[in-house]
């Protein structure tokens, strides 16, 4: 809770800093604040947490772990933001604040214990993201991304709310515990309204995480938004979305899983297919990452199809692995966009010669995303496959394997371009902060890949 308060206050403080033109202080203050929030969040580590504020929030290990990973990711992204917003607009402080607001919403999302909080958390995050997607005001792509995201997001919110309403209608409460006990007490005559509510919730949440067939917004919005925002969306936001998704279904709906598991199987398969296959043909790194993020949603959905005590840590590991790797990818993307002005695969040609460090870290990221052993991404995939097989979804797993192969193909395009293709290019300059982010993320990826028990047994 104190993390949430810290972040909210931090956002306001940042706004004030902006007001007083203390631009130089923005980044340090934000970083320090986030570190403080991180410390406060972690200090709440408690195995026997109880819901607080009339059952609105529950800061259990799950919530703390996901808060921590989202805060850390945000930290890393902020480290990349130096000079980034300055180029877009004068109102840097506001952007910082909006990101922090979004993060506050995310903290709410991962620790909700009441549908009200879920709803408010999601909306804080979404509204902030609508804004962030459109911060390049003169840029058509950014405009388009903002509008698309906004209209479709608002539309999907309608479904989410309808679902909430139906759940309320069936159970008479917004409290997760109450909803769960409703199912357990009426195992035979669960109201059809309740099932319809679940379906509508699935629609709403699937949209937020970008699972097929509700993924259509994702590639366009990811492409159109500024790279840093896309990084935030595809890492922190996705992680939070999944955390909320999983929490809701684990706590509330697990007794009726036979009803919704086939849906997730279908969604997982569709997401894998659409994400991976479409990514193959992409010519631009950013859009490729957008599609690939859809495919990762597919993998993460595996955790939903056989729920047990390991599902949460599976998603956690996967999300963590995916986040760090994506941050590297986006960091490189930002460097490229700034210095080459282009993010097509051709612009990666021969990076290994001019900047081996950049190439090396990006290679680790790509290997991790592709799920190659000794990287965190592999551990994530392994745990997801494990989940699927624990539910005897063998065909789905084999299908996922085939898709993973397709994934390797397009991730390796980057590696191929960097290492095996020659190119006349200028030296790429990587600022120390970027270097720091790249190094930390790469090291984290490898360490988690080599000794996964560091985080797999957290939750």
């Amino acid at each position, binding site marked *: 809770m104190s993390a949430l308060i810290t972040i909210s206050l931090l956002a306001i403080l940042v706004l004030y800093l902006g007001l007083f033109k203390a631009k130089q202080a923005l980044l340090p203050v934000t970083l320090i604040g986030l570190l403080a929030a991180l410390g406060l969040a972690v200090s709440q580590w408690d195995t026997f947490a109880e819901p607080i504020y009339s059952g609105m929030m529950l800061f259990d290990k799950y919530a703390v772990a996901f808060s921590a990973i989202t805060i850390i990711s945000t930290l890393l992204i902020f480290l990349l933001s130096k000079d980034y917003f300055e180029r877009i607009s004068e109102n840097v402080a506001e952007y910082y604040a909006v990101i922090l607001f979004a993060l506050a919403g995310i903290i709410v999302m991962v620790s909700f214990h009441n549908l009200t909080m879920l709803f408010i958390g999601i909306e804080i995050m979404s509204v902030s993201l609508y804004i962030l997607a459109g911060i390049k005001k003169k840029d058509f792509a950014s*405009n388009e991304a903002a509008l698309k995201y906004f*209209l479709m997001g*608002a*539309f999907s919110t309608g479904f989410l709310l309808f679902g909430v309403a139906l759940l*309320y209608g069936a159970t008479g409460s917004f409290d997760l515990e109450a909803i769960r006990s409703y199912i357990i007490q009426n195992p035979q005559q669960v109201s059809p309204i309740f099932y319809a509510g679940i379906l509508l919730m699935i629609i709403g949440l699937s949209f937020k995480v970008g699972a097929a067939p509700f993924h259509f917004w994702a590639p366009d919005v990811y492409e159109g938004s500024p790279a840093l925002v896309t990084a935030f969306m595809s890492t922190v936001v996705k992680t939070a979305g999944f955390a909320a998704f999983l929490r809701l279904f684990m706590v509330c709906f697990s007794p009726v899983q036979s009803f919704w598991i086939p849906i997730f199987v279908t969604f997982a398969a569709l997401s894998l297919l659409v994400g991976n296959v479409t990514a193959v043909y992409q010519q631009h790194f950013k859009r490729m990452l957008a599609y690939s993020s859809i495919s990762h949603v597919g993998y993460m959905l595996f955790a939903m199809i056989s729920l047990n005590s390991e599902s949460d840590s599976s998603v956690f590991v996967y999300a963590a692995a995916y986040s760090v790797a994506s941050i590297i990818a986006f960091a490189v993307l930002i460097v490229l966009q700034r210095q080459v002005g282009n993010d097509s695969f051709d612009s990666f040609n021969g990076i290994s010669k001019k900047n081996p460090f950049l190439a090396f870290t990006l290679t680790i990221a790509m290997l991790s995303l592709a799920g190659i052993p000794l990287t965190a991404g592999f551990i994530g995939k392994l745990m997801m496959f494990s989940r699927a097989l624990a539910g005897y979804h063998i065909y789905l797993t084999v299908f996922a394997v085939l898709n993973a192969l397709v994934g390797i193909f397009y991730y390796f395009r980057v590696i191929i371009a960097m290492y095996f293709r020659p190119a006349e290019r200028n030296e790429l300059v990587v600022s120390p902060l970027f270097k720091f982010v790249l190094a930390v993320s790469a090291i984290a990826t490898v360490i988690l890949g080599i000794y996964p028990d560091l985080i797999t047994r957290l939750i």
Partner: protein
Amino acid sequence: MESVIQSIQGVPLNHYILFSAIIFTIGVIGVLIRRNAIVIFMSVELMLNAVNLLLTAFSAYRGDASGQVFVFFIMALAAAEVAVGLAIIVMIYRNTNSTDINVLNRLKW
């Protein structure tokens, strides 16, 4: 007031649900068939109001106030969304002189 209360007594809950669903669907259709971003947005508002009504009906049915409280939050959200959404639309209009969503399809494939 009593007569009013009397009059509501007896309307089956499912008629409220049906009614909300219809309004909701009309909102969805509106989103589907219109090109003007503002009108689309208004259709979304229609959907939200359908939900509001449903929540209130449930709330009344169960004699539980929390449903109505939730409506407040939805209204707060609606307000926030309207502010942001209209700002976005205005921003786009400045760039394209249009609020037609079909104009905005550069990002594709």
